[in-house]
Every structure is written in structure tokens, then in C-alpha cells.
């Protein structure tokens, strides 16, 4: 069983020939859409620098989002990410970094 270091994510295997993983903008867009869908806000209501828990998202919802984000990105993620990177901007930046792509 390969050890998975808690703070890193495995490289996903994408469908494309030269898949570099999703960009920060794509991930930011996905998260914004996700919050809009689950919070019923308009997109203008979403501030990418605003801490997620100020939207009233609790730990269960955040963890559920991480699950869906795994499916979007095609790789395993740590459930502590929403706590360590608590804004859309921080999380999308972290997930799009070359080291984590």
C-alpha cells in the first residue's frame, strides 16, 4: 500500500494526452458554481477572498464539497483542506500549484 503523505495530493491520471490538471481559474470557477448551487446565492454574492465558514458552510458540507472536488480533479484530497485553505482563492491556488497538479 503506497504511503500517501497527508499534505500532498497524488497526481491524477487525466483523460487528455497532456493533462496538467485544472488551472486555478477553472477550480475557482468550479467552487463558485458549487457554492451558488448549494447556497442559492447569485454569483455576485460570492467573494473568493471570503472565508468559507462565513457563508454558513459547516464541516460536513465542506467535507462533502471536498468529495465532489475529488471527482472534478480526478485525485484524492485531504479533508483538512477547507480548514487549511479557507477561501475559494486560497484553495484553488493550492490545488492548482504545479507541485500539486
Amino acid at each position: 500500500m503506497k504511503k500517501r503523505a497527508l499534505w500532498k495530493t497524488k497526481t491524477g491520471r487525466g483523460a487528455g494526452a497532456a493533462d496538467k490538471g485544472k488551472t486555478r481559474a477553472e477550480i475557482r470557477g468550479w467552487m463558485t458554481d458549487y457554492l451558488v448551487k448549494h447556497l442559492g446565492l447569485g454569483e455576485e454574492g460570492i467573494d473568493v477572498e471570503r472565508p468559507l465558514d462565513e457563508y454558513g458552510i459547516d464541516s460536513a458540507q465542506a467535507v462533502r464539497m471536498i468529495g465532489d472536488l475529488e471527482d472534478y480533479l480526478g485525485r484524492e484530497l485531504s479533508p483538512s483542506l477547507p480548514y487549511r485553505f479557507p477561501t475559494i482563492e486560497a484553495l484553488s491556488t493550492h490545488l492548482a500549484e504545479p507541485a500539486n497538479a
Partner: protein
Amino acid sequence: MEANSQAAVAEPERGRSDQKVGASADAIQFHYDIGNDFLALAQEAGRNYSCAMWRENDTHETAQLRKLDYHVEQIRGQGAARVLDIGCGWGSLLHRLVDVHGVRRAVGLTLAKEQVTFIGDTYPDPRIEVRLQNWQDYAADEPFDGIISLGAFEHFAKIEEDKVDSYRVFFRKCHEFLKPGGRLSLQTMGYGDVPRERKHSDLFIAREVFPESDLPRLADICLASEMLFEIEYVRNDRHDYVKTMRAWFNNLRANRDKALKLVPPEVVDRYERLYRTMSYSFDLGAFTLYRITFRRIDQNRLGDGYHAGRH
């Protein structure tokens, strides 16, 4: 020599369920009888539906066997005359006990009809006896050398019940089932860093997948077993469950096409979500995985005004 295992279908007590603690037979069957074939798509070859014990280079299969052997070792089960498996699932432990550990009689209790059938078909061995019976109703004809219970304790107390009282019923029965000095090796999920006042907010687990069941807390297990059992050893192996839940998730995901032939998409999604969410919960420490070795307490000194084992 009989080829078939004795599937003693003892009539489950369908009397008033308010007399019993823990999940009812109907509630148990809600999850486990969704279809042998469906759950098999998530499970590994041995159909062990509890947390494995992972070491370097293990496959899921070998990690599950390592777990079984650990518990057999804890109860000193090698070559034992009689071992009881409370919540025997799909029978892999029963089989392991007689096949590898030389146990002469392995008795399994379950409330899931499909499991009884499966065990009868899969492990035809006269040393194995499986009973469709609640442990609260079981009256063993002879005491056991050891008891193992894996991933069943979570069902022994309902959410609204006084859990310590319910668990105490279990420990009293186990005390009764055992020979003096006999051991119980228990494996159960538990609550970790979730405050007592707040239930784990994802009650979706209790509502949709495991009705009537809630997780124990270590303190309550300890309290409930006082004066009945000596706690010899406690381990919290929650990282094993991170991997095990993830393995079930991955298997089910990989078998999605087959799964959709058996159940609706919402059900496949629900189980996928369950496995992955639970993997996260173990990773975060909200849930724990206890492996506890208990030894039956018997009176061994004069007076003192108490009777060990009779509380």
C-alpha cells in the same frame, strides 16, 4: 460426515422490540440485505465488512486476514474448542477460525438472512454453526473459550437509548457466554473529537444507511464493562479505516456499471458518499476505530462485599 455447515435458523425474537437494546432485525437488514451482490461490489474477496489491519505491501485481502488473525490471537483462539463470533457477517472469520486456527466449533450470530444463506453456501464445514439470532436471545448450550465481535457493536445501542445501559447488557451476556478467564476481542468504530452535546452533524449516516445505530464512546465502553471485564488492551487504529473505507469507495466506483444493474443510481451514489465521507471522518479524527481486548472477571478473593461478574 456432514458437508453442510449448520445454519440453525433459530427463530429471531419478533416480539416487542422495545424489550431489546440496539438495532432491530429490520434495521440491520435495511443495510445488509440491500443485496448480497451489491455490497460484494465494494468488498474484497473475503467479504469482510469491517476495518482491515494494514501493513506495508498489503493487499486489501491480506490486510483483512491480518485483522482476523489479530483478533484470534487476542482471544488465544488457536486450537480452541469453542469460539463465538457476534455479528458474523459473511462468515470469513468463522471460516478462518476452523480452517487455519484449528478451532473445533465456531458459532456465528447474525440478524441478516442473506448472510446465513451465503455462509451455508460458501463454507460448508460442520464445525461452523451460524444462527439467525440476536445475541440477547442466544442461550449457549456450552460456554465459549473466546468471543470475537467485529464491526457489530455500533449496532448495539440506538441513538436515543442510554448507551451505557445497553452496552452493559452486551457485556453481561458475553460474561455469561464465556468460560472463566475467557476473552472478548472487540472491534468497533467510535466517536473521537466530536463533543458529546453535538452528534456528528452528518446524521445522513444514521438516517439513510444505518438506521437506529450510533457510535460508542470509549469512556462509555469502559464504564459499561466495569466489574464484568478487565480491559487488557486498547488500540485506536483509525488510519486503518481511512484506507479501508477508501478501498470500498474505489471498488464500488470501479464497479459502477455492475452496481447500476442492481440498484438505482441514487443508491450507488449514497453508498459511494458514505464510504468516502467516512474515510474523511477517520482521517480527521472525528471517528476512531477501537480494538479492545477484554478478559472475563471472576471472583478470586474473599469478602470485600462484592461479587465480580455479577453486576
